Structure formats: structure tokens, C-alpha cells
């Protein structure tokens, strides 16, 4: 079983790095789309089947938290799990992201193993492909 991923970050290099780290982590990725901000992400999501979104918070035009708000209001997209990925991981910021609908949180820089565990956890699938019942929310501190 493999999954379609959308990576949202305003830095082209960072998107490449995230994609590379997800690939080398061993996470079973099928399609990988990229977007430079929340608005571009919504456009990708409206046209493609995405299993999980990995999004930066600080971005121009539409930031990661605003993207969460848009997804929450959209009946079709609200169930897609979103992992926030950011440099500044204060407890309050994490709580705010979770309140607005994020399912996971990773602080940059991060290791391949960290992102893999969070990806499988928010999708609700074990690494050998079995579905879990309740995914809840997760941040890297749980590992």
C-alpha cells in the first residue's frame, strides 16, 4: 500500500529536502505533489487525491494555519490529515495548530525516522499496512 503526499513550503529547496527525507525514510510514497503556499495547496487538493499533507507554517500569501482553516470548512477535504512542519515549535503554537485541525507536528530539522512514524500514525496505518482505529493527534515528542 502506498500513499499520495502533498508537500507545502515556500522554499523550493526545502520541498526537495522534505521529499528526499520522506523517500529515504522508507515511507511508501506513490505520487508526491508540491505547493509553494496554502493557496497553491488548495488548488492541488481540488484536482488530485492526496492521502496526507505536510505543510510549513510560515509562508507568504496563505500560511499553514490558514490552510488548516480552509480544509476544515471543506466537506471533501476536511478528513485529509495534515502534518505541520516548522522551525519554531513552541508548545502554544503546537496546541493552536492541533486546535485548527493539524494531526501531527514535526520540528525542523528532523530525522527520516521521525517523519515516517508521524506519517503512518496520522494516516492511521501501521508500517506493514494494517489500518488502526483511532489516530488522534501526534507530535514528535511522542517518539
Amino acid at each position, binding site marked *: 500500500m502506498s500513499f499520495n503526499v502533498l508537500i507545502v513550503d515556500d522554499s*523550493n*529547496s*526545502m520541498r526537495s529536502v522534505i521529499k528526499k527525507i520522506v523517500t529515504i525514510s522508507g515511507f511508501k510514497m506513490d505520487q508526491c505533489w508540491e505547493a509553494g503556499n496554502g493557496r497553491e495547496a488548495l488548488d492541488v487538493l481540488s484536482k488530485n487525491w492526496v492521502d496526507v499533507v505536510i505543510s510549513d507554517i510560515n509562508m507568504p500569501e496563505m500560511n499553514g494555519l490558514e490552510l488548516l482553516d480552509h480544509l476544515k470548512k471543506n466537506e471533501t477535504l476536511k478528513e485529509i490529515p495534515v502534518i505541520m512542519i*516548522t522551525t519554531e*515549535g*513552541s508548545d*502554544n503554537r503546537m496546541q493552536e495548530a492541533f486546535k485548527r485541525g493539524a494531526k501531527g507536528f514535526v*520540528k*525542523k*530539522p528532523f530525522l527520516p525516522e521521525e517523519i515516517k512514524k508521524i506519517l503512518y500514525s496520522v494516516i492511521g496505518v501501521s508500517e506493514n499496512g494494517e489500518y488502526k482505529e483511532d489516530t488522534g493527534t501526534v507530535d514528535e515528542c511522542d517518539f
Partner: protein
Amino acid sequence: MENTKKIQELLMNAIFEVFEKMYFVFLEPVDEDVKYDMVASINFTGPVKGCIDVLFTRGMAETMTRNMLNVDDNSITDKLIEDCAKEAVNMICGNFLQKYDSSKVFDLSIPVFKNKSGVFTKQEAGAGENVCKLSFESDGSLMGIEMSVC
């Protein structure tokens, strides 16, 4: 003074973590002046305000870009170096602030990059307690970092 020492230690740990995890670069603190070629800067606001400048030699920036993106020397462009330098200062700042006080919310500006050369002197007499200056070396390439707190 105690606070300055603590800030310096936290900043150093943030730099080590970012460079080792993201760029696979292992830095050694040095006392040398740094003849830098480019600067990446970021401002932060919150319970404490300040700014961080990271001053790179071309060699250091190229090593970071090569390692981060896993590209060969011929594929390294000025745009990739700029992106990489901005991401570095962004991660250092975020990592430092989290170590400084993870219970508080800070806002980070969008990083700014400048092709600007000069000489960075690690610790000038009378630089003040609100300024922290550090320089590092890795495989013959140098970089400096200056953090000012208001």
C-alpha cells in the same frame, strides 16, 4: 552575564543541531575572523525581540547546499545557495527560541539574504551583553553568527 552565557550555549547547541541534522556539517568553534561572502538574516519578536545574522563563506554555503540537496558541484546555483542560507538562519532561530523558552510564542520574519562581503570579528571589546558573536569552522570553511537581543 549569566544570562549571556546561557544564551550563547543555547545558540551554539541550536547551530550544532541544525548543521549536523540538516547539512551533515560538523562545526568546531574557532576564534578566527571570518571573511564572509554572504549574509542571511532573520528577526524575531515575542517576549524577547532580536535578530540573527549568519555570515557564510562561499565554501561553507556550497558545502551546505551540496549536502542538503545531495547535488554535485556543477548543479549548485546562486539561487540554491540563497535558499539554503535562508533556511539555515530560519532553522537556527526557531531551534534557538524553542530551547530558550518553548512555552512562549515567537514570530519569525521571512529570512533575508544578501550577497555582501566583509570581515566578521568574533568578539569585540565592549560589544555588550545583548550581542552574541560566534565563529565556526568545518573542513577549512568558516562561518560566523551574530545574535542581537533588544
